[in-house]
């Protein structure tokens, strides 16, 4: 090969890198065999404990991942392809993404969805930026029931931009209507809500939507897709942009990622939407096929004038979610949501029987709920861990004044026996 090139050595190919620009150091361990790496990684995996029975949620849930999901996305034809720049050679990815978009649309009751964003938090940030572009306004009203993780993230992204943020309180577990309405004016770009909110409480935001629209503002709602098996969809409420974390749609928890951000909106807003969009068309013979479309919104065409800087998104995670939604299906999603709801209600009833636990019941909840404990929450969590339970998430970590509160999540995977064992353990810890 060097003969064809006409170079005396491989080193000669690096002649453009002058000597003084060569590395000052490159001290790394020597390579291992595949078996040795597997052994080492296995040892590291075993240092993590997935032993405690998980009752933690906070927007990320221990749902069952069907084997077919993993098997199908483990096909090299899916996972070793890249962005479908050549549609003739990428109909598999393109059609899977079109089906993903369609499933997200019917789930959320919206007209159009994109082919994914990184995760629920960045998706919400992108929705907010979209609302600012659409309205030409710069004030954002955000309900404190929106995940504090998302709110922190949005604040870091916009730290250097001249946007006005106002956060409204949660009252009796839900968004504070009066406070939100009072803030609506002709500068308001969007009201940002979440359903169920971080405390697990469910709501019908239709009234807020009507008021916001009257003020010329958009409404953005972050949703939990599994709950939409039962709950009123953002589309039915009249929401303008909806986003969410798709981890619950067949993705493992995987210590925080890769996850799946999704976004859906009204058809009139499609040209302001960020991210890849797969559209239907026909080929030269009139056969239905799929392509990336409306690319004039995107960075590789518009550069600094694009609707977002996003390029690579999470196509494989979207494919995984599309597979999950197909497996679960129309009736299955309702059944799954019902299981989550009923088990959480059962657990609320059981926990109410314990001395030292006050189950908050000011608002209906889906599969996650808030309890007030008589002992220090962090100490209780630590003690419960030793008894084999990840007891929940301490709300005081993000909400000042809520140091006594614990957020408990229940999924379809939790059995009656596990719930009763948790209850018994908690009673002992609180005794």
């Amino acid at each position, binding site marked *: 090969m060097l003969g064809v090139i006409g170079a005396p050595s491989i080193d000669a190919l690096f002649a453009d890198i002058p000597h003084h620009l060569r590395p000052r150091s490159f001290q790394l361990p020597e390579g291992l065999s595949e078996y040795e790496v597997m052994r080492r990684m296995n040892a590291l995996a075993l240092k993590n404990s997935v032993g405690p029975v998980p009752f933690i949620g906070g927007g990320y849930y221990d749902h069952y991942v069907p084997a077919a999901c993993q098997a199908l996305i483990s096909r090299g034809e899916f996972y070793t392809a890249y962005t479908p720049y050549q549609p003739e050679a990428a109909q598999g990815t393109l059609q899977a993404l079109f089906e993903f978009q369609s499933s997200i649309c019917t789930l959320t009751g919206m007209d159009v969805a994109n082919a994914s964003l990184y995760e629920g938090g960045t998706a919400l940030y992108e929705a907010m930026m979209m609302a600012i572009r659409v309205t030409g306004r710069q004030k954002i009203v955000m309900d404190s029931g929106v995940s504090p993780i998302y709110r922190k993230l949005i604040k870091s992204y916009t730290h250097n931009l001249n946007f006005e943020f106002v956060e409204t309180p949660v009252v009796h577990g839900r968004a504070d209507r009066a406070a939100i309405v009072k803030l609506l004016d002709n500068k308001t770009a969007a009201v940002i809500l979440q359903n169920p909110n971080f405390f697990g409480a469910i709501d019908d935001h239709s009234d807020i939507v009507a008021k916001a629209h009257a003020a010329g503002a958009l409404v953005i709602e972050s949703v939990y897709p599994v709950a939409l098996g039962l709950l009123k969809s953002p589309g039915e409420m009249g929401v303008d942009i909806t986003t969410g974390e798709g981890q619950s749609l067949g993705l493992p928890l995987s*210590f925080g990622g890769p996850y799946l951000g999704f976004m859906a909106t009204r058809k009139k807003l499609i040209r302001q939407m960020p991210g890849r969009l797969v559209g239907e068309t026909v080929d030269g013979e009139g056969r239905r096929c799929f392509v990336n479309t409306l690319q004039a919104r995107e960075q590789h065409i518009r550069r600094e004038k694009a609707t977002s800087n996003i390029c690579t998104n999470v196509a494989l995670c979207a494919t995984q979610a599309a597979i999950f939604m197909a497996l*679960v299906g129309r009736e299955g999603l309702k059944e799954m949501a019902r299981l989550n709801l009923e088990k959480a209600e059962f657990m609320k009833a059981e926990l109410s029987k314990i001395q030292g636990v006050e189950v908050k019941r000011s608002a209906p909840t889906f599969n996650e709920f808030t309890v007030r404990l008589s002992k220090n929450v962090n100490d209780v969590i630590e003690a419960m861990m030793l008894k084999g339970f990840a007891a929940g998430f301490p709300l005081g970590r993000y909400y000042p004044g809520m140091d006594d509160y614990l957020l408990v999540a229940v999924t379809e995977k939790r059995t009656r026996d596990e719930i009763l064992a948790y209850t018994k353990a908690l009673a002992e810890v609180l005794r």
Partner: protein
Amino acid sequence: MKLIFEKSVTGRKGLKFPALDVPATAQLPKACLRQDDARLPEVSELDVVRHFTQLSQRNFSVDANFYPLGSCTMKYNPKFTEKVAAMPGFADLHPLLPQLKGGEKYTQGALEVLYESERWLCEITGMKAMTMQPLAGAHGELTGIMLMAAYHKAKGNTHKKYVIIPDSAHGTNPASAAVAGYEIISVPSDKKGVIDLAKLKAVVNEETAGLMMTCPDTHGVFNGQIDEVSKLIHSVDGIMYYDGANLNAILGRCRPGDVGFDVVHLNLHKTFATPHGGGGPGSGPVGVGERLEKFLPISRVIRRSDGMYALNYDYPDSIGYIASFYGAFGVILKAYAYMLLLGCEGLKQTTDHAVLNANYLLHRLKGHYQVAFDRICMHECLFSASRQLERGVHAIDIAKFLIDQNIHPPTVYFPLTVKEAIMVEPTETESKETLDTFAEAMIRADELSKTDPHAFHALPKTMPISRPDETKAAREVKVNFFAQSV
């Protein structure tokens, strides 16, 4: 091929749920319930498996095809890394677990992976500290520009307005800088293919916040004066940003930190062999030099004196949260396992062979295609279809010809600086035999352009579809099976 929704049969199910083992008591307010079901398909597990298996067969992929997509580093993704990411000790780990009191000790293995990945990548890039949080290359860019902004703010550099970007850059560079609130100045390249130093000098001034570039740049050329560029930008207290898209060209041969870059982002899905997933998930860790370290996003992973790993949030100057958690952990695991496998010498050989392969293709094809810059290239070689265009054949036509040869086309029409660009990045994992097969196919395409240029318009012929009508897709937008065209 039918859509999964078109295969739906009422009552069919693909997954069995456990029976409800608690009393059904829940009563939700009617106003909170949905009126219409989500119209998800009703199909069996076999229906789903067959449908998606057939879909997968309508894709080109690295596993099945040579995939020399320039600037994307489509190297082979070792299979064992998939098994690593699926280990229950990693896959089932809840991200909030280490944030609970006493929770860190249940996630020591995961935190160690993050900590060690940072250390490896710091040594590889010559940077002082690293965050694994950014979830893709463009996300890393935005993080890097936010660090730049935080630096200027802390120094009281209120006059910094512009980020300078070469015209050959990826579209994400100007888009990321704009999203972070900067204006963009574009600087052209010189005849050698690198940023024009004289023209750069003319635009650098006190309002320059920084410069973003790849090195080697998207022309596949290493800029031997990169330290001069750094000095120039630093002379006005600007920040040098390294876009790691092309890091595969310099592993062990040059480190961004040594030549004056203050901040770098890497693409683990390019250089570190994690799969591209049909368009993600990626991972875009960001490394910084001393000047920017205190601004890194939180949380950060630390190693305590007792050897325990922990999350630390106590960085008052931090730009804050840029992702919900600690990064695309499943992707990071694969990259870490890949680094352990290759080790020091293996990583160096990666670059050596990537550059050898690209130069080999450059020389095999230079008699047939116009070379954009006639000199040694780095890990990718750049051609123009300008000669073929004289015969009425475009770069996209050559791309479609290659599809019929079972080869994924190179990147075409990028960089924008080269007319009818064909950008070929073979990567180190391809054999000489594969490169020869590709070169011969390219030569046949050139010959066909001489003998029968009209033949290209009907290509590709061997795929499930012929060329799609993209104009119709954009005019009658249909992105949702359940809705009419927009």
